[in-house]
């Protein structure tokens, strides 16, 4: 395995990413976006700046205009975004959407979607979740009927992150008579496609997609008919690790703010950070964050190296980060006391984002179960 340590260029990238997020206001920006309650939920100007810096091309080959880097660098961007609760759809549009096109797209699909994704001009939104489907994409029930030379899609997707304002959607569906999943690229504005903005606890861009006999041409199929599960699984693993990076950022920032609070808040005439009842819990959080960081770095490198144990590493990281993030954000609120319950204080924003990330691509229990299955017990 590649060393679990950042190279000098990686350190530089992490610093630049942190500076950009901070420059635009950090967590205050997320609060403002939430208060404005626009359906987009993120800042197009920040997205454009991320594109200018080349970040939207980090995981893609240079021939398509990418930077030719990998997950090890991608998680540095998502970690910086997590620290500032940045809501831009980087994981959904770039890591998942762009990554899936690069992996499974035809040369026409790659040409149509990848360079504009890297340039920040087009965004894909993957639509995995169906009402009642929880985390198993294999349970997809959206139906695809052959219709002349093309297809007609019917079904409903929910909590499509980045779905509002997307230029296209990746729709997994079941082809009639087939025995697998087929992936479809559906452009925004397709006839019969209804996009309804949703409001979630984390205020992030999210949509319901209703597919009422959406007509698409044969070349809308991404990869092979009935062969969608494998590329989809690879895309989910990459996106999962990117989310883990984001979780690492959220937990680190929430933890550091809590430690500062313990050093500044007085009760009974002393700083509350002198109380051993709080100290030991703080130390345990620190350890959990350290362990989480190791798993994220290892999972990112395992995917980059194509290691045999990559899926194990991904599930290990997602389970660890999910548990650690919930521990840290719950403790952050408890240690802040009553002020943490107020909307005015930021700790609630961290907690809300934490839950959304916990349930993205499977929670800890889901990934422990996957780990056990992969190990054969």
């Amino acid at each position, binding site marked *: 395995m590649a*060393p*679990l340590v950042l190279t000098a260029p990686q350190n530089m990238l992490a610093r630049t990413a942190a500076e950009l997020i901070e420059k635009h206001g950090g967590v205050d920006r997320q609060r403002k976006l939430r208060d404005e309650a626009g359906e987009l939920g993120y800042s197009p100007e920040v997205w454009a700046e991320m594109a200018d810096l080349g970040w939207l091309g980090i995981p893609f080959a240079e021939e398509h205009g990418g930077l030719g880097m990998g997950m090890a660098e991608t998680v540095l961007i998502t970690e910086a975004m997590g620290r500032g609760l940045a809501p831009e759809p980087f994981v959904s549009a770039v890591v998942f959407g762009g990554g899936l096109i690069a992996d499974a797209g035809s040369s026409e699909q790659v040409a149509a979607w990848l360079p504009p994704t890297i340039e920040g001009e087009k965004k894909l939104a993957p639509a995995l979740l169906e009402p009642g489907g929880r985390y198993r994409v294999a349970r997809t029930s959206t139906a695809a009927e052959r219709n002349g030379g093309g297809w007609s899609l019917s079904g409903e997707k929910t909590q499509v992150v980045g779905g509002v304002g997307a230029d296209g959607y990746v729709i997994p569906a079941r082809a009639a008579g087939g025995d697998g999943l087929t992936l479809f690229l559906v452009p925004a504005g397709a006839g019969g496609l209804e996009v309804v903005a949703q409001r979630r606890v984390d205020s992030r861009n999210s949509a319901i997609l209703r597919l009422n006999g959406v007509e698409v041409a044969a070349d809308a199929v991404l990869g092979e008919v009935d062969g969608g599960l494998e590329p989809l699984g690879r895309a989910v693993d990459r996106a999962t690790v990117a989310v883990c990076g984001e979780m690492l950022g959220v937990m680190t920032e929430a933890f550091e703010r809590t*430690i500062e609070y313990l050093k500044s808040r007085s009760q009974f005439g002393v700083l509350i*950070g002198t109380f051993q009842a709080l100290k030991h819990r703080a*130390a345990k959080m620190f*350890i959990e964050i350290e362990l989480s960081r*190791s798993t994220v770095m290892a999972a990112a490198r395992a995917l980059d190296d194509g290691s045999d144990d990559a899926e194990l590493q991904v599930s*290990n990281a997602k389970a660890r980060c999910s548990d650690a993030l919930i521990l840290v954000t719950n403790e952050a609120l408890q240690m802040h006391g009553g002020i943490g319950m107020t909307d005015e204080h930021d700790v609630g924003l961290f907690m809300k984002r934490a839950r959304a990330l916990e349930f993205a691509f499977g929670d800890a229990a889901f990934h422990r*179960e996957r780990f056990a299955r992969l190990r054969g017990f």
Partner: protein
Amino acid sequence: MTDLSAFREEARAWVEANSPEFLRGKASDPNAWAAGGRKAPFIYPESRDWLLAAADRGFSVPTWPERYGGAGLSRDEAIVLHEEFARLALPMPLTGFGYSMIGPTLLDHGTEAQRTEHLPKIARGEIRWCQGYSEPNAGSDLASLATSAVRDGDFYVINGQKIWTSGADEADWIFMLVRTDPDVKKQRGITFILVDMESPGVEVRPIRLISGASPFCETFFHNVRAPVHQVIGEVNSGWTVAKALLGHERTSIGGMGRGRPRASLPDLARDYVGVDESGRIHDPALRERVTQCEMDAMSYGLTIRRHGDGLEAGHKPGPESSMFKYYGTELNMRREELMLSIRGPQALGWEGEGFEPAELDQTRTWLRSRANSIEGGTSEIQLNIIVKRVLGLPD
């Protein structure tokens, strides 16, 4: 990379040629592990052959410089060497406090004369060491230790009692903390000194634990005379040396969390609990505990690896040893508890009929593991160190 694969070839050939046939496959047999020394006989004569063969090549203490009996290997080369030992399931040629604690401490803090005197004897397994830190009234609050050392010419005269001196009954020398100045802040009046256990006035009594016989002893000092040149570091600055050594100890105790597992948890669970028609552990709640334990071990191993990679890349070592000691021991104890749950009533054997040898071993190992979070600084002390030195929370 090329260098490492060349070294692997060399190490493999050396291990094939020099490891006794009898010891292969005995990595998990505690009788096969040797700590050397004048008093303690080798249980298997082959362990002695293995130790001496390794010592001749510097492989008993592979990362130490060659002039002190090591092979001067890099960390990566030492990992490769240990992987080659593990490939044949060989025990390490040398274990013990000399190898893991006082040796590294002398490399950091000893004078050239002290290193030359002691390190080669450790490397060849000639001298076994024990540790004199804890006292009946100085456990977690180690710095309040009271065993005194008073200067008398070229000697210190030592009086007092140490407890939990592992292996004192079989050790040849002891490294210990003594109070040389009772009138200053408690950490400032402590000196780190080496004492020959054959000195007149040293008395050792073994301690019996809840797990039965134990390597632990009480060690008494009545007017024991130790030469002044056996002080390590400066007089009254023994606390600094002790903290460095405790770091080695924590890393060594904490290492057990990912240590040589006696049995794979999933395999043990399959054997005792059974499997369903698809071959999965029958009881889903138990399966979840096994999974959690396996994932924790994986994450812990990755964190140790990340720490090592960081050192290799030039990061300064910090108080990570407290994190490793805390997490490694807690993990090991959880693992022992889980193995107990998996074996159920068959984990209750003490001796005699009705229990397999592995089951009897399990009972004792579980009981013994309860000390992991106490010895080498309790879990609570490790958390205190993290809070103070990493998080900077106020006292």
